[in-house]
């Protein structure tokens, strides 16, 4: 059963086409990796699926849970349980992490026990009384972003580079937090990663590779991950461009 399907997606920001052609799917109970070099259009794809008003879908369709959400507002999509963690989350002056966490948790009926579990898993105790993200390190920001998203009890999350600029300890915590989200009802996720560090901490089934706004191949997660580790994206382009779409051994 497909939970999310994007078909022939073309996305623009202003007058610029940032995603040229993206077709992919995520099954229910599946975590899928999305690889790609910098500026290949991964974040634009994520924002377009989320419904960020700056990112316009000029062609193609998005189906979530069997419903066509292509023309839905961001607010409606979030209400359906679809959301994204941002690569760069903002500083919120004057609002403590604790205040914001309680505000989100109470909206989504997240119990205190579930919330405290997440705080423990992500080691956030010391940040609770501080203003959200103000003076936080890169790793702390990523953990906070995951925490606040988890409080929404989402059904589907696009994780936009949760592993970039993160120390190895935080990586393991993020991996555990995603498992915790699955326990709280997460049915699927697309994990955007530039470097693939997170691959060994989560149980991803398949992976896609996006280059220059186009999905150029997909296949078994381990196979693609190993390939990129060994050869980088250059090799990936050479090997797959215009030849085969689905990667085989």
């Amino acid at each position, binding site marked *: 059963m497909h939970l999310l399907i994007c078909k022939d997606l073309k996305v623009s920001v202003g007058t610029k086409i940032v995603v040229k052609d993206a077709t992919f799917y995520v099954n229910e109970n599946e975590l899928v990796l999305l690889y790609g070099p910098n500026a290949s259009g991964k974040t634009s794809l994520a924002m377009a699926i*989320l419904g*960020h*008003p*700056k990112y316009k879908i000029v062609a193609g369709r998005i189906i979530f849970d069997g419903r066509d959400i292509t023309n839905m507002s*961001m*607010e409606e999509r*979030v209400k359906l349980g679809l*959301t*994204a963690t*941002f690569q760069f*989350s*903002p500083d*919120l*002056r*004057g*609002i403590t992490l604790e205040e*914001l966490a309680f*505000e*989100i948790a109470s*909206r*989504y009926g997240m119990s205190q026990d579930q919330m405290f579990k997440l705080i423990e898993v992500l080691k956030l105790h010391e940040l609770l009384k501080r*203003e959200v993200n103000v003076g936080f390190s890169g790793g702390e920001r990523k953990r906070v972003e995951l925490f*606040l*998203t988890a409080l*929404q009890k989402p059904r589907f999350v696009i994780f936009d580079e949760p592993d970039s600029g993160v120390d190895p300890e935080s990586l393991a915590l993020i991996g555990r937090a995603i498992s915790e989200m699955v326990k709280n009802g997460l049915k699927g996720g697309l994990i955007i990663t530039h470097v693939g560090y997170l691959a060994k901490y989560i149980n991803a089934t398949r992976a896609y590779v996006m280059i220059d706004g186009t999905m150029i191949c997909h296949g078994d997660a381990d196979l693609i991950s190993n390939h990129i580790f060994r050869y980088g994206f250059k090799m990936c382009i050479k090997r797959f461009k215009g030849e085969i779409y689905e990667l085989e051994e």
Partner: protein
Amino acid sequence: MSWRNEIRERAKKALDKPPKYGIDVDVTKFIPKKTSIDVNLSEYSNELSLVGIDVSEKERMGSFYQFESQIIKAIAKHPGVELMSLEDAIDEYGKDILEWFWNAVSVDQDKFTAIAELKGRGGYFIRVRKGVKLKIPIQACLLMREHGSLQAPHNIIIAEEGSEVNVITGCMMMRETIGLHAGVTEIYINRKARVNYVMIHKWSRAMYVYPRTGVIVKEGGEYVSHYIAFTELKTLQMLPRVILYNGATAYLSSILALNGNAKADTGYEVYLQGENASAQIVSRSITKDVAEIIARGYIYGRAKNVKGHIDCQGLLLSTKSRIVAVPQLIAESQDVSLTHEAAIGKLGEEKIIWLMARGFSREEAEALLIRGFMSVDITGLPSNLAMLLKQTLKLIAKSVV
């Protein structure tokens, strides 16, 4: 009372003197009024709670109510504190009142101080005895309702050595009509005493508001002031002057959320007069519609090892409103440390989008960001006053979106 006549003669000479900043007003067209209605305070409990006044008086150490020019009530619940109208205080103290009468504010500062002396009525007199510490606040409520009314009370707060008092003043115009509020407030904080002063204003679009405040803080004394105005109004101008002697400290905030045609020119003026004195001026200005705010801060460093900081932030919620930040540091001694920061902008769209991804509606996201923007340091306040301030700011944030 010849001493009073001397003061009045000085006032008369200043009747035409325009305010140093802000917009001038013809004060002669306003006269003190009596209220035309019977006052049943409990009927107004919801409105009054908006400016911090608790009609039930449960969590209050004393209450003062003035409706137009009439004193409705002046009662303290603690033997260590005197609370009465200014007229009663003059009766009781006679010429001795001069120790605290027109000392922290000059009677001939401008036409507004002059008119307060010559035509003003009422105002509260609060004197807290040596060593008495009152954590529960005293509330003072000043209400206006009549067309063309002048309300110019003269308030005096005295905190004797080692004492502590918390005062919340709520001022409100209850109808859409023209009026002038020109209250004078003098605050005398003696050695190692502390005053926390919270003032909340809610006016109407035809109101002229010109409070005049002076504060003198002696050795080791502490003064905390939070001024909040969320309102439409015609013009507002105030620049409380705070003088700090050896080791005295002050934290002075103004939080303004103005809409309509409002024009405000506000801030604080601080003199670091004694060694090791320190002060912080914090302003948070929010404008909607075509409102305009000039947020001022002046810190004069005049003694050794003094420290001063101005933090001036503005948030424009409409394209046609205007905010001007004027932080000024004046060093008149070599060993001073004076700093400032100022920033004006609009709500960050990316922050709104991010909060929407976290499940907030656009309006809720904006309200949350505005609440965050308005937050100031309330750690020095007792818990009930801190809570009151928090709730008020939450309410304002919701109402301005």
